């Protein structure tokens, strides 16, 4: 472990990552007028963490997580802080490409690149453990690579099917085993009260998120999708309580916007859902292109945002057994990740969200190299098209090369939605 405690060679703000973050942040703040006041908390947070290298969670054990399936409740209850390591830096994608196959997914490459270069996140050297759920093939194989870099890695087993009873039992066992593992890392035994407190903490955050989610259903979009991605991305690494407070402040401001009938996008901007591979700062390429082209992302179905915060855990009795089982179910059953065999849940979720948010179209991003999202695309597109919801499927990665072509496609998509609306009016 000693080797990650090495000093970073360059001052943080001079790294490529810092300049990439700075560029994106500038574009997010400056390219759009009237960003909500309360968003400044998040902008500042990114600036501090990614541009200035200010470390968070001092004096706390940090457990890095590699996927949305890791139950954060258990980590908090064991006295550690979970930090989601999924990374969106193109610079790190490049670093990762040095030792990973060129055709692998940008997200995995970037995450491994980050872990290898030991920069990007200021507290990367302080990771006490990395939990790696065996979700997709690439993450599964990344485990030993990460271990070779000198990190302590815990492989968490995930069933490939989620409907079956066997999967449920398997997963529950996996989660219980993980709870045992956490004790090894933090030295703190899981207790009823600490788990309850952790659940309450997360459910407060989810409550704030749900409020934000509801606010996005407004006919006048009160917040742009890129800002929501900034908010949810911040959940990856921020102090959960201050994150919750900041979201609550944002909600208050947005409620005011609702009263004032203020619209953050053009009044007639086509309302879009974003789904597929996650948009992770600073790879907000597609959300940004969408909103620059006059669309507005009103909802998303990605593991960096909605999937991570939407579903809330409930428990009938407040014993560790019942709570942990409840948590386990909640991290598996509603998960719409395409690594699971069936596509139905994701279809249903998208159709329901499209209805709930009055979305006119869906933008489906799939990272090149992400087989499962690409494979699921056809059936999702068909299901949505059958309900007269057009889908724009984009296969892309972290590189900025295809911006021009993407912008044409996104614009054309938005124009076609506008034309469709005109036609329907006639």
């Amino acid at each position, binding site marked *: 472990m000693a080797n990650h405690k090495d000093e970073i060679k360059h001052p943080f703000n001079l790294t490529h990552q810092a300049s990439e973050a700075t560029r994106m942040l500038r574009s997010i703040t400056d390219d759009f007028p009237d960003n909500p006041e309360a968003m400044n908390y998040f902008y500042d947070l990114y600036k501090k963490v990614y541009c200035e290298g200010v470390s968070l969670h001092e004096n706390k054990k940090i457990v890095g997580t590699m996927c949305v399936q890791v139950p954060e409740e258990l980590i908090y209850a064991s006295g550690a802080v979970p930090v989601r390591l999924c990374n969106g830096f193109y610079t790190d994608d490049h670093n990762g490409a040095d030792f990973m196959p060129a055709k692998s997914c940008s997200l995995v490459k970037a995450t491994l690149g980050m872990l290898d270069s030991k920069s990007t996140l200021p507290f990367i050297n302080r990771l006490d453990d990395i939990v790696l759920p065996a979700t997709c093939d690439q993450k599964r194989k990344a485990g030993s690579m990460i271990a070779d870099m000198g990190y302590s890695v815990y492989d968490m087993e995930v069933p490939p099917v989620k409907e079956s009873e066997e999967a449920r039992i398997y997963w529950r066992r996996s989660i219980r085993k993980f709870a045992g593992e956490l004790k090894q890392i933090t030295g703190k035994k899981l207790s009823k009260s600490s788990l309850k407190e952790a659940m309450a903490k997360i459910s407060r955050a989810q409550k704030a998120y749900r409020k934000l989610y509801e606010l996005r259903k407004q006919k006048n979009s009160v917040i742009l999708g890129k800002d929501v991605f900034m908010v949810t991305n911040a959940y990856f690494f921020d102090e959960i309580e201050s994150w919750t407070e900041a979201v609550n402040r944002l909600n208050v401001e947005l409620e005011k916007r609702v009263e004032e009938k203020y619209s953050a996008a053009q009044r007639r901007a086509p309302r879009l859902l974003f789904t597929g591979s996650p948009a992770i700062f600073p790879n907000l390429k597609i959300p940004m292109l969408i909103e620059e082209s006059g669309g507005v992302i009103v909802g998303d179905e990605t593991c960096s945002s909605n999937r991570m915060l939407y579903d809330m855990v409930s428990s009938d009795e407040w014993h560790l057994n019942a709570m942990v089982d409840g948590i386990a179910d909640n991290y598996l059953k509603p998960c719409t990740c395409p690594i699971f065999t069936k596509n139905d849940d994701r279809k249903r979720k998208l159709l329901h969200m499209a209805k709930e948010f009055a979305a006119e179209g869906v933008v489906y991003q799939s990272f090149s190299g992400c087989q499962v999202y690409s494979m699921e695309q056809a059936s999702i597109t068909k299901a949505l098209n059958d309900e007269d919801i*057009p889908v724009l499927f984009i296969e892309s990665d972290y590189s900025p*090369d*295809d911006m021009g072509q993407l912008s*044409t*496609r996104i614009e*054309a998509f938005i*124009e*076609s939605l506008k034309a*469709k609306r*005109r036609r329907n009016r006639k």
Partner: protein
Amino acid sequence: MKYFAGIDIGSTAIKIALIDEEKKILASRVTPTGSHFRKNAITALETTLSEINISMDDLSYMISTGYGRKLMKESDESVSEITANAIGAIEAGRQHGDIKTIINIGGQDTKAIQIDDMGTVTNFAMNDKCAAGTGKFLDVTAMNLEIELEELGDYHFNIKGAPLPINSTCVVFAESEIIGLLADGHNKEEIVAGIHYSIAKRTVRLAKRVGLEGNVYFDGGPAMNKGLVAAMEDELGKELVIPEHPQITTALGAAVLALEAYYDEMEEE
């Protein structure tokens, strides 16, 4: 008399179309994009305008499209080439009956667009990053075979044997494959036909993603290549609608949109 302009700034050529209130094409022009495309675009526009003796100030509305659309500050607005292409195809293909599918092969991309009766884009597909199967591919072929781009069609029809299968889809690899085939003593006709079939196959596969219904309209520079058209028709199993000026369809669409936008604005005022 009111004048409307559509300017399509593509990766290889700048296309300009000028129409009047009746959507009649008054003038059109195709010039290479070059490296200073904005300068070239303005020069080309001015030249075109001068053909019918008007100036920039006489234009009622101008819409730019294509990759350089956003940088053309002189135009009133910009629109994506997919939308413009659809409108242009409806306009240019009107006499050929209902057009439901458009295949466009441009300099660097290939598009398949599905439209409804109103010219609204209902679905579209585009090739990913790579230039395989685009106009660029034909350019490279012609250059390697040391023949003119315009001659490709003639070579295609003068074939004696069967078209050679071209396996490489990448421009760069195809180049070396062609050289290899030449070295092996294959004649140019067979190679050209092989290239045409290779492009046709890829394009048809793309088009199938959006569905191939009704009349299929084929435009873009390569649509002037009769050999490619024949290969495409062969692959598709049906006849293609080829406009009179395949290159300017998108520019025409932009001009029609300019006209509509102008009257919409007038109405609102």
